[in-house]
């Protein structure tokens, strides 16, 4: 009886042990080592030495690569926003209107995941080629100027990132939405919740304008026309599709899913460098590109390590703030 009890107390630790040990040895310890290496000084040829005086690596790196950091945040946020805009209606449809086809639809959302993301990005390169299947005919028809291009611009990079992480945004939102008891929505309707035209239009227009304007600034397009486009489409969507029951019931209840999805999208998006490498150019370099080149090409370990830690710290801070804002304290449960 005593032995049994003792075994019970021990069981969780026994279960945890192998996995946690693995993470400690191959995640925690290397991370600490990385941190130490950010205090190295010296070169490849003269050898490296550790010294606390080298804390200057951090501000130096931040100053030199500030633009890339900023860019990563902007692109990450833009990609996350786009993902959210695309994914939410999609998840909503699958959850509430999916019926028999829910699993099939979900599967089709995940299916692209089954192929190499490098190959998919390469496919985008083909599709978005200057004279490719998409733009070639448009240019021939005169709808686009001959100088128009999407590849090697910020648009291509953000579009690539958004595309890659779409399933990450869709699934958590879907999971949240699916858990909502539809009887709540019915009850709201019974209590005269109806279309939310004036408020919806206003809110929609505002949000649409802000989002479009923000994206335009991020991509360095003309802000005015895109912002107007945003306002108009926001207005239409707000007027036609937002209802009180949606705003007051469904949306708030789906927030945990939105939160999880945004995290799962924003975090990797900030550290991404593949899209910037394949679809961008020197003006779209993100912090991930810098870390990779500092590490692998310039062998500048201290700077690379410092940048990595600043990136991680930034992400954790952003996650904490976001958690507070949305009131979701449980970061770690799904």
């Amino acid at each position, binding site marked *: 009886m005593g032995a049994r009890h003792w075994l019970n107390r021990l069981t969780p630790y026994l279960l945890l042990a192998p996995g946690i040990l693995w993470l400690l040895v191959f995640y925690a310890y290397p991370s600490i080592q990385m941190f130490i290496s950010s205090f190295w000084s010296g*070169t*490849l*040829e003269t050898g490296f030495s550790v010294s606390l005086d080298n804390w200057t690596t951090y501000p130096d790196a931040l100053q*030199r690569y500030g633009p*890339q950091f900023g860019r990563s945040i902007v692109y990450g946020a833009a990609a996350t926003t786009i993902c959210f805009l695309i994914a939410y209606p999609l998840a909503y449809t699958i959850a509430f209107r999916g019926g028999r086809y829910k699993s099939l639809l979900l599967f089709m959302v995940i299916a692209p995941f089954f192929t190499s993301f490098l190959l998919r990005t390469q496919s985008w390169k083909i599709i978005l*080629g*200057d*004279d*490719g299947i998409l733009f070639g005919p448009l240019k021939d028809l005169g709808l686009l100027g*001959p*100088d128009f*291009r999407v*590849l*090697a611009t910020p648009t291509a990079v953000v579009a690539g990132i958004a595309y890659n992480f779409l399933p990450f945004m869709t699934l958590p939102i879907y999971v949240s939405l699916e858990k909502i008891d539809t009887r709540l929505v019915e009850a709201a309707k019974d209590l005269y919740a109806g279309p939310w035209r004036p408020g919806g239009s206003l809110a929609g227009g505002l949000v649409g304008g802000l989002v479009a304007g923000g994206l335009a600034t991020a991509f360095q397009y003309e802000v005015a026309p895109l912002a107007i486009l945003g306002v108009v489409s926001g207005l239409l969507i707000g007027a036609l599709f937002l209802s009180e029951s949606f705003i007051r019931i469904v949306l708030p209840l789906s927030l945990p899913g939105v939160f999880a999805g945004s995290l799962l999208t924003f975090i990797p998006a900030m550290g991404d460098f593949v899209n910037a490498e394949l679809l*961008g*150019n*020197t*003006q*779209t*370099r993100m912090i991930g*590109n*810098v870390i990779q*080149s*500092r*590490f*692998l*090409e*310039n*062998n500048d370990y201290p700077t690379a390590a410092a940048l990595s830690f600043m990136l991680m710290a930034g992400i954790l801070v952003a996650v904490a703030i976001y958690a507070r804002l949305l009131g979701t304290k449980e970061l770690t449960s799904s």
Partner: protein
Amino acid sequence: MTEIETRLAAELTRRRFLQGSALTGFAAFVAACGTSGSGSAAPTEPAATAGASEGPTTSEPAPAQSPSTELNFANWPLYIDTDDDDPSKHKTLEDFTARYGTVVNYSEVINANDEFFGTIRPALEGDQDTGWDIVVLTDWMAARLIRLGWAETFDLANMPNKVTNMQDVYKGVDFDPTDDHHAPWQSGMTGLGYDREVTGDLTSLEAFWTADPRWSGKVTFLNEMRDCIGLTMIRSGKDPSLATVADLDEAIAACQKAVDDGIVRAFTGNEYAEDLVSGNVVLAMAWSGDVIAKQAEKESLVWQLPDEGGMLWTDNMLIPKGAAHKYTAELMIDFVYDPAIAAQIAAWVNYVTPVKGAKEILAETDPDLADSPLIFPPADVLAKVKIFKSLSEEEETEFNDKFSALLGD
């Protein structure tokens, strides 16, 4: 894929303007240009003079050692003769296997010097085997490897071919005065690569700084510092072999202007070749052999040495320290310095071969190839190409750092 072979041959036969001995012209020019500041001693090693004039001499392997069962050879893409139907077959390597019984694990994993160096550096730092027996690196990276003591010293007794047949111009370079740490693989030139159909015929570097609507926004510069800055300096009338920090700053400012003017689309490694074919890029700073190789896929592609001049560079074979099969690697290096083998490689690769006697052998089987100015550049071509200055460690760090900033890294 035999189409390519015939098209390649056809392309090359169209080039007919070799006069005089291109090889001596090469030697004279490069010696004058001065790869090495220091006066080199008598280039021939004692072992080489033993009974050899021209022509291949192959010696028996030293009795104490025998070739290993495998050899790990890392190289750049499209840099060795390849069977047109089966890209995994390379006649040169098969010949080597036939001779020595060694299986050659040939990997085209090198796409950029810095990148590849980054992959072998950890092992070398830790005194470990990198896993490669032969690596092929450009001059300045080879210099760095040797400087760090990470290149094995050749046992020249195992490489009589190399000692005898290596072009004199490569002998006694400043980063390897004793010629026993590196062996040139191929040399090449950097110039204009463009799509004639879109841009018309271009002959001047000025095209890179002209916002002509035909190519503005579809231009790529190279992300190899020496090629990019070198060409920029040539355009402004400076000599890259005497590059100073002031020259560097000026060149970087010029490149930045081209970027700001919207002319330059991106800084690339050899990806520009793919983009030239797909049409996303119509003008690029290009390496001679690359463009020629892609002509099979797009006939209108042209490689042109600019009027103002171009860059010349050399890729070299080195044996990384701690290599498992050093002896066999030496055999391989020696093997490719056999003029017959060198001719075989040169015919496919379209770059400048460092091996004496290859031209003569090629002239017997394919006189048009032997006349190709790309493989055997004539004196007037050679007179216009420059080699970038050999930089010290501090200079290299500074140059690289500033160039990285231009690249956004």
